[in-house]
């Protein structure tokens, strides 16, 4: 059964197609070359005038696992009907509730899948899986319909790794442990959150800078980054080490961020939600934008990629592994409650609800800083569109964010309504850039797939998985990206006119580089002595993800 998508305007950066009129043929979930005239076309969609892109990929979104679920449990008010009414919001807050969003920052797993696919997203990656909590994260992702998923396992604050590093274990021992962790947790990448800092907080250390020692292990974040970025590189894991820098949210932290770019000594690293790490200390309020310095450094340091972590105004909740910094942020909680948790000598989590307000100086400037970074980083292949869902805003606000990037008039009108002191401290209005559809397709599709190593996603070439989104070209880019005409997932039409018409279950993407099985000798001793579960029970088997008949595992290596 062959499906033909006829005469669409293709935005497919992998194949340099920038609005090229072309046909797409789909067979058994894949894009195929033009079949022979003798072969039967079962279905044809006339896409004349429509914009065609690969399905979008969110490379950083907290969609499942312990801290997301704590947020759901802690915040029943998010389900309050009143919050679901859009009419009381005025711009710039109104975007939080497009007619198609689930209207809160902590949707159920079903809502998560539905809201993503309705916007044309066909994959999302949970960026902070504590290895000990990986089974829980996969359970939630397994209950998330419609989209593909995957995750990054957190290392660098676990006592096992820090003991290795402190004892000057050789790089091979680190590599084996990193590869073993990927396999044990069914993850596709490795993340480090506040390198060494979550551990340091357990020893009552309250701040940790890049070249400062963790008080117990006497190792620095720089050493941790060097070790882990080397491991990821040497193991051939496509996804560069995912780095949440030290000093999240602190005024003046941009210098830590700039210095962090050097920590891998030229090896690839991805700095995540970089907006939260781009703050200076200038001005009366000792809080300023360092977006220009950060963007300049990103333009120069080609080994570094980043996603923005844009904030948008309204109620949300921040959920992070960074207990050290979330403990400081807890005093800003709105509503006033928070959860800070040390977890299993593995890492931790901090869940703090936030309400970003457009008349608050810091919040307004955070908003501007994110956009300044988007507009000042030249290479769209190395900057990614995220709100660090739900930390900066719920992912359902992406269409609004896309409009802010593509529509200077809209952006400047929104900016003009913000806190005046913040306006005075931002150069946003002088940035004339408007993202093109082609650049949006890079940032949300081609670039994201390339970054994670999903070689058959994020593009519309022959052999690609037929994850395809079709939009009506509209001047209002928010309306356009909120409601695609059609979304195909693995070749099946699953969304029509912005509504799900068929429920499907996506795959879990993983990477499993080889390792020396003898790594388990040391781990077994450690587990027996210090852990509270058996080593064998720590590891997640393939069956656990696939046995219910819905889940499926796809293993990627750099060449596949």
């Amino acid at each position, binding site marked *: 059964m062959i499906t033909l998508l006829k005469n669409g305007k293709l935005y497919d950066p992998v194949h340099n197609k920038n609005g090229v009129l072309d046909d797409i043929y789909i067979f058994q979930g894949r894009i195929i070359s033009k079949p022979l005239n003798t072969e039967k076309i079962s279905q044809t969609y006339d896409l004349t005038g429509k914009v065609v892109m690969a399905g979008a990929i969110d490379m950083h979104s907290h969609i499942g696992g312990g801290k997301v679920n704590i947020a759901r449990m802690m*915040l029943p008010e998010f389900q309050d009907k009143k919050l679901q009414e859009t009419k009381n919001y005025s711009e710039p807050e109104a975007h939080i509730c497009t007619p198609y969003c689930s209207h809160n920052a902590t949707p159920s797993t079903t809502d998560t899948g539905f809201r993503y696919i309705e916007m044309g997203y066909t994959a999302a990656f949970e960026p902070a899986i504590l290895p000990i909590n990986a089974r*829980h994260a996969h*359970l939630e992702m397994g*209950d998330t319909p419609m989209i593909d998923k995957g995750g990054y396992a957190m290392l660098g604050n676990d006592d096992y790794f820090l003991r290795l590093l402190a004892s000057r274990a050789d790089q091979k021992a680190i590599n084996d442990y990193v590869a073993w962790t990927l396999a044990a947790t069914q993850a596709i990448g490795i993340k480090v959150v506040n390198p060494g800092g979550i551990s340091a907080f357990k020893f009552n250390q309250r701040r940790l800078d890049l070249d400062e020692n963790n008080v117990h292990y006497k190792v620095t974040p720089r050493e941790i980054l060097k070790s882990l970025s080397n491991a990821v590189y040497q193991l051939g894991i496509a996804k560069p080490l995912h780095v949440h820098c030290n000093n999240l949210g602190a005024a003046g932290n941009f210098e830590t961020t700039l210095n962090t770019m050097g920590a891998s000594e030229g090896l690839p690293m991805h700095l995540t939600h970089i907006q939260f790490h781009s703050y200076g200390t200038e001005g009366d309020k000792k809080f300023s934008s360092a977006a220009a310095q950060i963007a300049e450094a990103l333009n120069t340091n080609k080994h570094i990629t980043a996603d923005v972590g844009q904030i948008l105004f309204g109620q949300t909740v921040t959920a992070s592994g960074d207990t050290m910094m979330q403990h400081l942020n807890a005093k800003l*909680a709105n509503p006033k*409650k928070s959860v800070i948790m040390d977890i299993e*000598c593995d890492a931790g989590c901090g869940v703090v609800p936030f309400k970003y307000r457009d008349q608050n100086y810091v919040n307004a400037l955070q908003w501007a800083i994110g956009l300044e970074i988007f507009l000042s980083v030249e290479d769209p292949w190395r900057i990614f569109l995220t709100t660090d869902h739900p930390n900066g805003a719920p992912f359902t606000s992406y269409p609004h964010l896309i409009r802010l990037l593509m529509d200077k008039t809209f952006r400047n009108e929104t900016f003009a309504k913000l806190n005046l002191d913040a306006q005075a401290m931002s150069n946003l209005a002088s940035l004339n850039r408007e993202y093109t559809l082609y650049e949006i397709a890079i940032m949300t599709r081609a670039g994201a797939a390339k970054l994670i190593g999903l070689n058959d996603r994020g593009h519309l070439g022959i052999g690609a998985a037929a994850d395809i989104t079709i939009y009506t070209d509209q001047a209002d880019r928010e309306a356009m990206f909120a409601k695609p005409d059609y979304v195909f997932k693995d070749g099946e039409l699953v969304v029509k006119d912005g509504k799900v018409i068929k429920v499907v279950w996506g795959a879990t993407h993983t990477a499993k580089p080889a390792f020396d099985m003898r790594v388990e000798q040391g781990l077994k001793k450690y587990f027996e002595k*210090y852990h509270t579960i*058996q080593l064998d029970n720590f590891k997640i088997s393939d069956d656990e993800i696939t046995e219910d008949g819905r889940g499926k595992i796809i293993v990627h290596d750099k060449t596949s």
Partner: protein
Amino acid sequence: MNSDNGNTRTMMATCPACGLLCDDVLIENNQNKISVLEGSCTKSISFFEQSIGNITPLIAGKPATFQEAIAKTAQILKIAKNPLLAGLSTDLQGFRAIYDLAQKTDATLSHMNAASSQRNLRVLQSAGWQITTLTEVKNRADVIVCIGTDVVTHNPRFFERIIQQDGMFIGAKEREVIFIGENIQKNDTLEGSSLLACRASDLPEITLAMRALVLGKKLKATQVAGVNTSDLQTVVDKLKQAKYAVLVWVAKDLDFPHAELTIQNITETAVVLNQITRAAGLQLGGSDGDTGVNYANTWLSGVTLKEDQSIQHDAVVWVNSFSPDKKPPSSDRPLIVLGNANSQFGNKPDVFIPIATPGLDCGGLLFRVDGSVTLPLKKLRETGLPTLSDVVSQIKVLLG
């Protein structure tokens, strides 16, 4: 650690009998009869060594086939407008099936431990907390204060596995354990432990005083609910001097009105301590899959399970895999029991369908009481019983 020797097989098992989920239990299967060889406690022995029980379904007390019992169940649920799915003593897969059934039948869900779970949930939803998990406690905790509980009644191996072990950063002998409460037997094997005796009903006042003292407030009274203020101050000083103090509570043991305020005193004491040193709360207890059921309901629906069991209903489905002695609530509504083959009843149920017990008759998954760890359960013996998910999916087919 698995071995096969003729008629007997030994293997490591994970015990679902309490929230600790000890996975170091060595069991032996001798011709389908299980014995615990190592890592035992009273709860694990009665769980693993339970008989296979009555594997025949019953309709109005009379033996029936599974098909008949399932058909009868579907018939009752088809008529019911708002069934109550209660008990919910099951594992993750079982709960997912039950959740689907609730969606299909417009049913209300209620776990048998809802009252105690809600005590914790109210604190989480009003103030949040600062808490920790078992491996952190094992490796860091130097001062452990157990408030209103001996712990071992609920989690028999807590001290053996977590406290009386040398950790990475603390030796077993360097720890200090303090109990505060009533009817707490001093654990003789627990060196260096002490008891501050008080009535359970005085815990709200005592925990409030402790919270005030940690905040640095001076109390004028020399006694608080019969406890010397100076004794409380001694505990508080130890908490303040600790490198990693842990305050333990078991919600089920705080069984008095507004117990959530007492729990909040405990958790806020930890929050205040964390301004200068490190400390954390630790919620223990847990049984019948309660943690996982609450978690899964939250991610599946976006909201937590409600407490209200008195909600209007016109049929009851009592789901009980793990605790055959826990009986369904008495009700004049039609009663269906999907339960452990040894289930006991007060009222004779309209339908009883015996189901496989996860961790014994079939595999499964449970959340540990501290929340971050999910562990697989193993099938240890052959009973031929269907799993809860099997039964529910057949019911769903008949519901159309």
